[in-house]
């Protein structure tokens, strides 16, 4: 199978990798890059567990052809925490916003993109931002609470 070289910035780090024809970004991130934080939930673009940021906007990596990521910056949950948890991750912990944890990575990336674009979202903004991310255990209220909490408690990181 033909393989193409591409270059991406993965959580701030430049990487050169080979991708196969038709290979999706989720598969490349997990198998080639070794970043296991985006999850396979449906491979149909319906569940949001594979959500990553491409140049700052949320994308479903299962529906993204890997070669289209060439030259772009990819961000995943693996890059959210520095030395300590990000305010958003911390808010998810404080608000008990995860049970099985499988949707959490996608939720965090959708919420992260929202807070960067809109540091003071309304509850409706949050609902809209995570509307492409399904959760089957926790229920959405605790997740929305966490995003609102992060927005209120951590304005400094938006600066």
């Amino acid at each position, binding site marked *: 199978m033909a393989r193409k070289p591409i270059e991406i910035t993965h959580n701030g780090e430049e990487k050169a990798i080979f991708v196969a024809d038709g290979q999706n970004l989720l598969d490349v991130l997990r198998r080639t890059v070794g970043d296991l934080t985006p*999850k396979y939930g449906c491979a149909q673009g319906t569940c949001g567990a594979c959500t990553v940021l491409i140049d700052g906007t949320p994308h479903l990596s299962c529906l993204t052809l890997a070669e289209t990521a060439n030259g772009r910056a990819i961000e995943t949950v693996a890059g959210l925490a520095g030395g300590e948890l990000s305010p958003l991750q911390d808010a998810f912990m404080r608000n008990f916003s995860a049970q099985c944890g499988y949707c959490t990575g996608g939720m965090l990336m959708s919420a992260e993109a929202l807070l960067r674009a809109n540091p003071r979202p309304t509850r409706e903004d949050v609902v809209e931002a995570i509307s492409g991310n399904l959760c089957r255990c926790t229920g959405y209220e605790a997740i929305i609470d966490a995003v609102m909490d992060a927005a209120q408690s951590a304005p400094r990181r938006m600066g």
Partner: protein
Amino acid sequence: MSIEFRKEYFADERDDDLNEIGRPTQRQDMVGHVTGRSPFYDDHLFDGLCHIRCTRSPHHHARVRRVDASEAERMPGVRRVILAKDVPNNLNTLLSLLDFGLDDEQLIASDKVRYKGEPVAAVVADTERQAREAAAAIRVDYEELPAVFDVEEAIAPGAPSVNPAYPQNLFVYHGKYNHQKLRFGDVEAGFRDADHVIEGRYQMSPIEQAPMETCGAIAAPETNDRFVCYTSTQALFFSLGTAAKLLDVSSARLHFVGGTVGGGFGGKVDSLHEPMAILGTILTGRPCKYMFDREEEMQVGAPRGAERWYVTDGVMNDGRIVARKLVGYFDAGAYTRLSSYAIVKCVGHLPGPYTIPNVYADVYCVFTNRTPATAMRGFGVTGVDFAIESHMDVVAHQIGVNPVELRIINAYRDGDMKAHRRVAHNCALIECCQVAAEKAGVRLSPELLAASSLKDGGGRRGEIPNFTATDEHGRVSGFDSGSYAQGDRPSMPLPDAASRPAPQPTPAPTPAPAPMRPLEPAHQSAPAPERTPEPADASTTPPGQPAPPERAAPRRGPTRFSSISGLRRR
């Protein structure tokens, strides 16, 4: 989120020194979840990982005439095609680990498929795409058979026989009974005395658990002739025992790693993936992953099974329910999985949390050509609670009583005798109703507000009825009650409908609300309603067959360590 603690309830039954309840406690796995580092089974990477995909039946019921894998075997990347004959011990039932139920399901179907999506072959290939393409290239010659999808049609005369272990399409309990029953008092007498007799029919459809992570497992060879298996299972030891049995390997050679489950809700107990992944590894020597894609999760993954209920209540004008009759049909789908157990649980829950002096229940585990059903959150109780509580509302409406009031009037109180002949204690339904009424703005009369689970129970309500109507309805023959294991059951002809025993005198269960058949009255106060002595005659053995040995030769499979069937074995 605010939690309101009402510590006045059961206050005298505990020291008020709770050290966890009432305080937030962080989940031990939360840091892993918010950093994306929780190790789900698919987060274990292996070089040279192979992928397993199944060829699945497009039919609900069909004879498999021929499986031709010759083209698939020659396709690029294909390492192995796995057929039924490659499974070392290709017959199991999930609860055989508890000696509960006959082995009735193959990992890969050999001669027949009994539900849409049942695997007839599996392909191990280097990439998932190659495995998919090869699975699609396997030619299967099917002879379509009539299928049955409705529980009552399935047990009507002339219905297609679904599962060869249970030719009558009914699970057989204790080797003797085609349903679970509960008898307490005399419902017919209760109906005669009642001011109203109110009937209802309720039905619940199957429900898919739909976890975010689909079911799957990865197996790989380990040193010391062992296999490691990373799995999404909710039931690690079920999966371990099931894999050991189907593959005929010692469980000591299987190293299972699990515990991080991306949502289960009951849908990850069926242990379909671990044996297949390990078998792929045994046959190819490669690490193998077998997982449902989303479509398979929805179509093939076992749901909460459908249920149909007939409920008849005898009610007095003042709201007292004096008799309740329930006839229920659980749709197990094509194989038993956990449905037989769900019904045991269900009957233990009847007639709901109400003190009713006359109770009758027959609950059937029915096989149909639908997707096999399994566990899901409260299974066994959820469907019948829907029926009972819906019916309570219907009854309340018909006799002109507030639905909350009807529940308080009939709720268990401490000291009451339950239909299972156990005394109720720690009751709290009345208090729950009072709080619910308050929150919902429902005005309750002073008497109802003063009602308490601690008052007015026991006494006559705590007595077992002098007379309980019993019957022999539901007895079957041709099954060995010594053990469910087929290895212990040489007398049972298998596996084809053609060679199945002559029609049993199984009384086709009449859909309620039919009158109860005439019974020989028996006075009974023992807890077990049907403790009929084992017939000593040979009628359970078809003529011409040797009688089953005292204790048959040891069968394959894991040692049973306990039994929920009431047939505890050493």
